[in-house]
């Protein structure tokens, strides 16, 4: 059977599974809708958290980033996983004890202020939508390449599926669907990794294969071979970093703090029965995440070797079939600069602007002709980083069912994250804005209706982003972490560990943190992109890492202002005392 037919079958089967779970786990109460009734086992919750958090970006892009940047890219691995330590130690147990539905609810109650709650909702919606745009783009890529349907159709199908289980099943439906999605995506990620590891080193465990000797009899290890290949062609040596230490520190810190501040991840710890379960659950989540995240470096290394071998110095007329297929989607381009009919893959951008602009004509060898200006370097190839994981099975000539599996895995990764984000958006709008701020008298039923309506609107907006993806989506996802770090994480942690931080301090801190981070990012990416280099960065910190400074500024402003204004009222201080003690946590409950 062809890869396309198999892809249809695999993706179709996984969709049927998700919808089946949605029907089985319909919810009737707001409690079940928001936090699944609070009775999810820690291991199950950990698995769902892992699926929630491992997005299309994790599944498709991280291995690609690592393959092309080597050691520099690894800061993303450390950053994204290290955040779980902060989450488990500083947030999860206390927020579970607090026992309500949403992150803005904690901020609103702790800072006894509707304004604080509304500011938190705004931060949350901003973070969630930037994140969701990336997921929908992932769905679009998979559908357009593997199922060869229009991206629009693919996105609409994806949205319809999410609609079914997020709107009907709420958190309960999402939790069980995410468990299924985790299984699909981890299997889909590991199978090609194991195949490639065996292919290069005979070692079936990719994590160990990465450190192993090659099986070609050269006596070199995988990493030595990679260093040799990259250096010979003039790329940066694979295992040597080039980024400045301060920028690496800032990026790692921003991603760690940001991960701990992501609302759709935090809310996951409201769903376990006990405080100690929240800690355990964060641990299990990280175990499930690390199964994939420790495999990513191996996938990156093997695919870099595969790519270089199957592309560089190969005549275009003899190029493997996948090159033409990806060329047709516009994610690979070749321009025969020296007229020898052979593809030269070297460092630097082949064209200016970097992304290829295709004309309708075909060149001498049947390649798609680009109208970009050519750069003066020897590189003739444009390879989009996002294709690495999906192209891997084809590059490594794995069986068709592996290709279909990867397609189903990528869709699972994108949908699970999108659903989690949709839920926090809808619960924030219905619960924090409607119920707690503007219409305190609405009934449970009414609130559930608003939550579902909000989810529908959010799905439509997300779908629009998927069909008209902003060109800067990949960057924007990383920026969502910076904004989460600068706005939500500090007030939550300070709210638990300090009794002195008050309403005015917290609100000012959030506003200063969010606006300064946003301003820095917008300035360097959209206002003056030509200035976006280490020379002009503040203290040499890139926009990706600026969330660290934003968080520090948030803390400083909040502390200073709280010092000169009245301390929080007695009952708020009593509440802080209560959340510090694990015993006596009821289920997350309605006010």
């Amino acid at each position, binding site marked *: 059977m062809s890869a396309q037919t198999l892809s249809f079958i695999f993706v179709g089967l996984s969709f049927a599974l998700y919808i089946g779970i949605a029907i089985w786990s319909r919810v009737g109460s707001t409690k079940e809708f928001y936090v699944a009734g*609070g*009775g999810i086992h820690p291991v199950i919750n950990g698995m769902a958290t892992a699926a929630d958090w491992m997005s299309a970006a994790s599944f498709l892009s991280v291995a690609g980033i690592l393959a092309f940047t080597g*050691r520099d890219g*690894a*800061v993303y*691995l*450390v*950053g994204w*996983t*290290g955040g*779980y*330590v902060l989450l*488990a*130690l*500083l947030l999860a*147990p206390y927020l579970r004890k607090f026992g309500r539905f949403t992150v803005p609810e904690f901020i609103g*109650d702790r800072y*006894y202020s509707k304004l604080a709650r509304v500011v938190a909702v705004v931060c949350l919606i901003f973070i969630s939508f930037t994140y969701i745009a990336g997921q929908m783009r992932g769905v679009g890529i998979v559908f357009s390449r593997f199922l060869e349907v229009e991206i629009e159709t693919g996105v609409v199908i994806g949205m319809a599926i999410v609609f079914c289980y997020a709107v009907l099943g709420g958190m309960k439906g999402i939790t069980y669907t995410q468990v299924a999605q985790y299984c699909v995506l981890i299997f889909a990620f590991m199978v090609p990794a194991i195949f490639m590891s065996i292919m290069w080193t005979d070692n079936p465990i990719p994590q*160990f294969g*990465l*450190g192993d*000797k090659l099986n070609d009899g050269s006596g070199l*290890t995988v*990493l030595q071979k990679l260093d040799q290949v990259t250096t010979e062609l003039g790329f940066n040596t694979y*295992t040597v*970093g080039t980024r400045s*230490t301060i920028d*690496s*520190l800032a990026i*790692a810190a921003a991603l*760690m703090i940001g991960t701990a501040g992501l609302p759709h991840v935090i809310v996951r710890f409201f769903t376990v*029965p*006990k405080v*100690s379960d929240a*800690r*355990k659950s*964060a*641990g299990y989540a*990280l*175990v499930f995440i*690390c199964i994939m*995240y*420790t495999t990513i*470096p191996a996938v990156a290394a093997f695919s870099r070797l595969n790519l270089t071998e199957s592309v560089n110095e190969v005549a275009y007329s003899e190029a493997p079939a996948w090159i033409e297929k990806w060329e047709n989607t516009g994610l690979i381009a070749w321009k025969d600069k020296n007229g020898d009919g052979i593809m030269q893959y070297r460092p630097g951008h082949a064209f200016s602007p970097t992304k290829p602009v295709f004309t309708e004509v075909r060149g001498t060898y049947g390649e798609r002709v680009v109208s970009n200006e050519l750069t003066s370097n020897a590189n003739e190839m444009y390879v989009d980083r996002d294709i690495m994981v999906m192209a891997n099975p084809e590059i490594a000539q794995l069986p068709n069912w592996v290709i279909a599996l990867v397609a189903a895995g990528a869709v699972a990764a994108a949908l699970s994250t999108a659903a989690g984000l949709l839920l926090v958006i809808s619960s924030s709008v219905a619960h924090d804005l409607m119920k707690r701020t503007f219409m305190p008298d609405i009934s449970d039923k009414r609130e559930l209706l608003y939550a579902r309506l909000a989810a529908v609107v959010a799905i439509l907006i997300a779908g629009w982003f998927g069909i008209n993806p902003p060109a800067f989506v990949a960057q924007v996802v990383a920026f969502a972490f910076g904004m989460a770090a600068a706005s939500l994480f500090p007030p939550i942690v300070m709210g638990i*560990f300090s009794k002195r931080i008050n309403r005015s301090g917290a609100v000012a801190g959030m506003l200063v943190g969010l606006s300064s981070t946003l301003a820095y990012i917008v300035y360097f990416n959209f206002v003056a992109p030509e200035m976006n280099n280490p020379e002009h960065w503040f203290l040499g910190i890139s926009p990706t890492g600026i969330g660290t400074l934003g968080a520090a500024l948030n803390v400083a402003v909040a502390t200073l202002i709280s010092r000169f204004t009245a301390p929080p*009222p007695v*009952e*708020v201080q*009593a*509440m802080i*005392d*209560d959340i510090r*003690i*694990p*015993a*006596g*946590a*009821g*289920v997350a*409950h309605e006010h």
Partner: protein
Amino acid sequence: MKPNSDQPTHSVKPGDDNNVYHHDAAENLPPHSHHDGETLKEIDVEAYWRANVRVLIVLLSAWAFVSLGCGVLFSDWLDQFSIGGFPLGFWFTQQGSMLCFVAIIFIYHVWMKKIERVHGVDDDDKSGDTGAPS
């Protein structure tokens, strides 16, 4: 925040209805048989919190040492050693730091459980009902 004599529990007294924060009183009293009766000891909340903060300081130092230290600051220096075919610093950025993170969270879980038992504030459900209270 001290438990009073006619309320044999450590739970915070629910505030009155106008308070920002209030639990349903019943929900604050899950079956905690080991706190009842004559064995009830005075719960020193302050001491528990100090112990908790101490644990956090130790574990967060380990976290910072691994992530920012081994992963970034002296990663290059560590490359002179090697582990399983990897330069050590490179291994930390690609795999090692993640394994340490998992270990830190589980150590935290076990350690806190122990401290909570000592201070009598753990949330163990001794009644045999393992399901969620609802």
